[in-house]
């Protein structure tokens, strides 16, 4: 592997992204000042429980947050181009062309009344100016690229005529057809069964290498994340609570929430029979204001300061940030199941 020179500017840079619903008194903040950086060719994971704001964050990158919400960011730039001031028309030139998205459920994200070929050529027509036979030939190539069996005839089929795995391949083909620099994969394997999950993740990784694109992987599945991500951002209640390269994060989690998440996953390779440890309680509801650290009510290491002061995201090691008052102690293993012995 060659050492890449540190790129002067990241592919995607987001600073202080906020997404909220409602206004004034009834404002409910769903994403509190999230910052993200994705460099060219890199896989960055955004991990968290359902409802922590990870999907909203990804939609906000495309300015596609649902009606009734408002999203603001200090910086939202793609390859140096500022996206914050772009209007709907200008954004639609970026969507699909430079940033594309793969959704969780291909059955509902693919249009059931259009053939797969049609859905690919629609993107080719919109962003590449390809029409007719040229577009059709390219659509078959795209299906070959995602290893769709029998692409020449599948191109004429509707989503309901395909299996779940093939549908997800088809959706990846649609997303990649304009050659985006950044692919946002929102729980791309959650709707698939386990055998297919591995295939689809392998496919995504291979395509990422071949096409040299960056991937922002939204997932709650730490197993998947551990395998593919270069950098991991852990999100809780609309905030990023820990960020590190994957190796560091899995070895030395510095936030009690990250550690708790890791304990909910069973390691098949280890011989120990460590009990799965569910995280007690539930994440705060949207709009529920918790003074201090939002994880405090569920945290096993909580102390007085946590209820008063919200810990900022701070550097706790090389390329490692965490938002916990006692991150260093957490890293050294305080309060972990082993610690109790």
């Amino acid at each position, binding site marked *: 592997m060659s050492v890449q020179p540190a790129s002067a500017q990241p592919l995607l840079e987001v600073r202080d992204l906020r997404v909220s619903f409602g206004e004034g008194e009834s404002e409910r903040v769903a994403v509190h000042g999230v910052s993200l950086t994705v460099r060219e060719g890199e896989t960055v994971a955004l991990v968290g429980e359902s409802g922590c704001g990870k999907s909203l964050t990804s939609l906000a990158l*495309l300015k*596609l947050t*649902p*009606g009734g919400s408002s999203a603001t960011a200090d910086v939202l730039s793609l390859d140096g181009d500022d996206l914050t001031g772009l209007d709907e*028309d200008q954004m*639609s*030139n*970026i*969507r*699909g*062309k430079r940033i*594309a*998205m793969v*959704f969780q*459920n291909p059955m*509902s*994200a*693919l*249009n*059931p*009344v*259009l053939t797969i070929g049609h859905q690919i050529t*629609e*993107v080719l027509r*919109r*962003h590449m100016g390809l029409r007719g036979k040229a577009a059709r030939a390219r659509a078959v190539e795209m299906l070959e690229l995602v*290893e*769709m*069996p*029998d692409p020449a*005839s*599948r191109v004429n*089929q509707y989503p*309901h*005529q*395909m*299996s779940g*795995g*093939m549908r997800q*391949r088809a*959706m990846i083909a*649609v*997303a990649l057809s*304009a050659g985006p620099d950044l692919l946002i994969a929102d729980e791309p394997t959650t709707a698939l069964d386990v*055998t*297919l999950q591995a*295939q689809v993740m*392998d*496919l995504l990784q*291979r395509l990422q290498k071949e096409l040299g694109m960056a991937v922002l992987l939204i997932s709650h599945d730490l197993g998947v994340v551990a395998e593919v991500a270069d950098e991991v951002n852990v999100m809780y209640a609309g905030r990023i609570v820990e960020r590190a390269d994957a190796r560091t994060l899995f070895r030395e989690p510095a936030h009690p929430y990250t550690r708790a998440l890791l304990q909910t996953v069973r390691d098949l390779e280890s011989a120990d029979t460590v009990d799965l440890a569910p995280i007690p309680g539930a994440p705060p509801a949207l709009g529920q204001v918790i003074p201090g650290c939002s994880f405090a009510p569920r945290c096993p290491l909580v102390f007085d300061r946590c209820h008063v002061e919200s810990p900022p995201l701070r550097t706790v090691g090389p390329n490692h940030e965490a938002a916990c008052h006692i991150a260093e102690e957490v890293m050294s293993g305080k309060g972990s199941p082993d610690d109790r012995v």
Partner: protein
Amino acid sequence: MAAIQALDVPAATPKGQRVPLDRRLLVGGVGLAIIVLAALAAPLIAPFNPIEQHLDARLQGPSGTYLLGTDNLGRDTLSRLLYGLRPSLISGLAAVALAAVSGTVVGMLAGYFGRWADAVLSRLLDLLIAWPTIFLALALVLVIGPGQFGVVLAIALAELPIFARVMRAITLSNVRGEHVEAARSMGASAPRIMVRHIFPFALSPLLVQFAIAAPLAVVAEASLGYLGLGTQPPAPSLGGILSDAELYLSQTYSAAVFPILTIALLVLSLTLIADGLQKMLDPRGAPVGL
């Protein structure tokens, strides 16, 4: 790199699966075909000129010469019916088509843009629905003026909400759907999303609405003709023939009964078609592939 193979590959379904033709659709279709053919072939098969008066043969019942009898001016009822079908069919079809197109556009805009656009358009639709069709059409014809154009416009406006409401509901149920979000995430514009990603879902319900609205339009046209607001005499129309005959009911039944039967047959055929289409396009009854 090892090839990745999909594990479950269902057999590709053959193209063009046949949906069994509904019997009501068949009967209605044949009925409508006969009526349309008769209207088209009127100059060939009508025994007399529809406005030619035979003053020596007024108010006659059916006979060898005048198969369906004559009216108070001795005009042949069969010939008048054959020619009278034309304005009825044309007005009915044109009015429903106009209502379908404009209603679809209105409903789609209301559903897609929501908020104030929906509020304004939906209240306007409520305003149109609040009046009975005939009463609304009557009021509009009085403003626009009698004649076929006014009748078409009036019926179209009266039936517009039927289509607008269906289209609005289907737009609402799809506009937040993931496939629309996905299309938007790939850069599709608002018009494109409406036409490609929402409208196809409305096709079969709109088709059924079209078939339901068509007989209503025929009845409305005949009613306006009966009230003297449609096709102007001496040109024949189904409603006009009926209204001419009404005054002489005590002398002959035939001039009144046959236009009624014709209208009934036309409405029955169209209604059977609507029923049959509804049955065939009902997703619960439809085989995979439709």
